[in-house]
């Protein structure tokens, strides 16, 4: 892979990560927040894949598989929490979950 393709892939990754952060901060719906986190994780994964391809190292792919596993675990736990919250409050609003704080 040529060097400037790597740069393109990294710019894409940064954009994706930024979208994820923006979504996380802007959305109040917990399901969308979870999706934003997924996007951020995948952005990181993309950066690893691209770097692994550039230098011909297997580490990038290994890291991606790790991130994949992590994301699967995170989503299952996150969704289960959201379901619990929804059954209690009839809402998936993150700000409504503030009630847990008090």
């Amino acid at each position, binding site marked *: 892979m040529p060097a400037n393709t790597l740069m393109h892939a990294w710019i894409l990754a940064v954009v994706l990560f930024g979208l994820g*952060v923006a979504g*996380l*901060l802007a959305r*109040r719906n917990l399901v969308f*927040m979870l999706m934003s986190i997924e996007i951020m994780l995948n952005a990181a994964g993309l950066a690893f894949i691209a770097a692994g391809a550039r230098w011909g190292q297997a580490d990038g792919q290994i890291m991606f598989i790790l991130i994949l596993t992590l994301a699967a675990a995170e989503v299952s736990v996150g969704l289960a929490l959201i379901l619990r919250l929804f059954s209690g409050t009839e809402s998936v609003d*993150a*700000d409504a*979950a*503030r*009630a*847990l*704080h*008090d």
Partner: protein
Amino acid sequence: MPTRPGRCTTDMATLLWLVPALPLLGFLLLFLSAGRAPRPVSALIGVGSTALAAVFALVLAGWLLSQGSGVLRVTLWRWIATAGLQVAIGFQLDTLSLVMMLVVTFVSFLIHLYSSEFMQQDEGYSRFFAYMNLFVASMLILVLADDLLLLFLGWEGVGLCSYLLIGFWYRNPSNGYAARKAFIVTRVGDTAFMIGLLLLATHLGTLAIGPMLAGAQVQWPTGSVLPTAAAALLLGGAVGKSAQLPLQTWLPDAMAGPTPVSALIHAATMVTAGVYLIARMHALFELAPSVLLAVAAIGAATLLLAAFAALAQHDLKRILAYSTMSQIGYMFLALGVGAWSAAIFHFMTHAFFKALLFLAAGAVMMRINDEHNIFRMGGLRRELPMAFWSFLIGSASLAALPLITAGFYSKDLILWSAWNFRPGGAVLWLAGLLGALITPIYIFRAVFVVFFGAQHTRPSSRYGVRIVLPLTVLSVLALTAGFVETPHALGSISALSRLLASTLPTRELAGSAALQTVAMVIAMVLALLGIAIAWWIYGRGAAGALRASAPVRALARWWLGGWGFDWLYDQTLVQPFLWITRINRADVIDTGYGALAALGRLANGLLSQTEDGRLRRYAGWIAAGSLVAVAVAMFA
């Protein structure tokens, strides 16, 4: 000891550490039983352990005397090992500690036996014996220790037991107050003692008594600053423990404890620990003649002050408490004039007759509903013959009734030694003589008021053998213990001073035998005169006329409060201290710490506002934080 096989010495060494270990074991058993043991078992442990210790002490005495002038040492284990100081847990038995050990174990045993009946109805029966056993163990550690630090351990141990036993009936707040007073006042002396220990340890590099004293004699010239300071500090400790001027105020209040406690701790043994300390450290005190003179002066002043204060008391136990103070004053006087063995002699006879007096007083009071005021007693001679004869014998010995009592011989030796002291011997002798006149007056005042005259109370019940036996044995000892040491005119026996000569130096007394006889006759006449005065005032009822005069009443009020020392200390020490605490209620030093706490609370308030439960805000902070971290990693 070449003629004896080594095994015998080993056996004796085992016996030696067993003597303090047995009461300690008794204490542990009673302590761990937590009051659940039945009364007979508690009594058996308490009395049995001291009895066994007394038997062992007797065996040791027989062995040591057969050895001539040997010293038995046993080192159990190392206690403290630092570069500058080695301290071992070890005991030594020489003739001085032998006499102390014998008196302590035997008087303890008799008083434990007496207590097993005296305290029969008390709910804290097992607790009582636990404390008493701990006391005996501590006292034995004190007298047997071969290291000054171990001696100090025993010293603090007896102080603790004294505190626990004065406040034994803790439900009454005034008993707790008396206990705290005793503890705090003696603590003043103990602090001086501890500073003295540090001084000795830093300058001589050891606290093991033998090497330390030898080092002091080599390194320090007589009368120089260091031995004077060290001896003065040790004297501070001795003064506190032995209730001498100016730390004497705790002893009369200590009578709040049960009577056997007063007999054992506050008459026979613990309060004489100061006398033992000075006798044990005699080589150090001889390097400081000015301190030794102070010892004699303190003794003479205390013996007079306490004797006059005893004249005015109406609580029977307080009379005996002031009398104890006064008699220890005699011992200090003897120590001060260098009559070491006379002090130990008087310690021994005093232990017998004063324990007897206290036990007899307890025997009287337990039969008349715990009445302490002598003026509400009276005429008890016929109803309580056992208590009467015991108290009479004890009083006679205290009053130094000539020829037949032990107190006469020990007091006479002290007076004679004071007479021979230069300079100032005549003054000390006169002070002692005045005390010898007052002593019979105050004690026979008690005898005549309590046992003669009209009867006010009707005694109940009878004494068991456990009270009769100690009273009998102590009565015999109070009469006969003096025959081990008699003046020239009366046989010139010197068994005790010969025994002690291997440990304590003897001073050749300059006065001739004829002069000694004259001095003795003067003391005899004064003792008889004192009894006659007491009879004239209290036996024939001249007291009423005396009480009618205003100056006498004022004087009596002054003496009743122990010369107003409590008032003086309250005004000069307690009140200023309370004043300082009042004006410094918001402690100045606390403001610094208060500011620290306020800062913490402020930071806590700020930070806890960030934790508001808004998930997105958290995410925002995390994002911002990551950004900062990345920026720092990239540009820094």
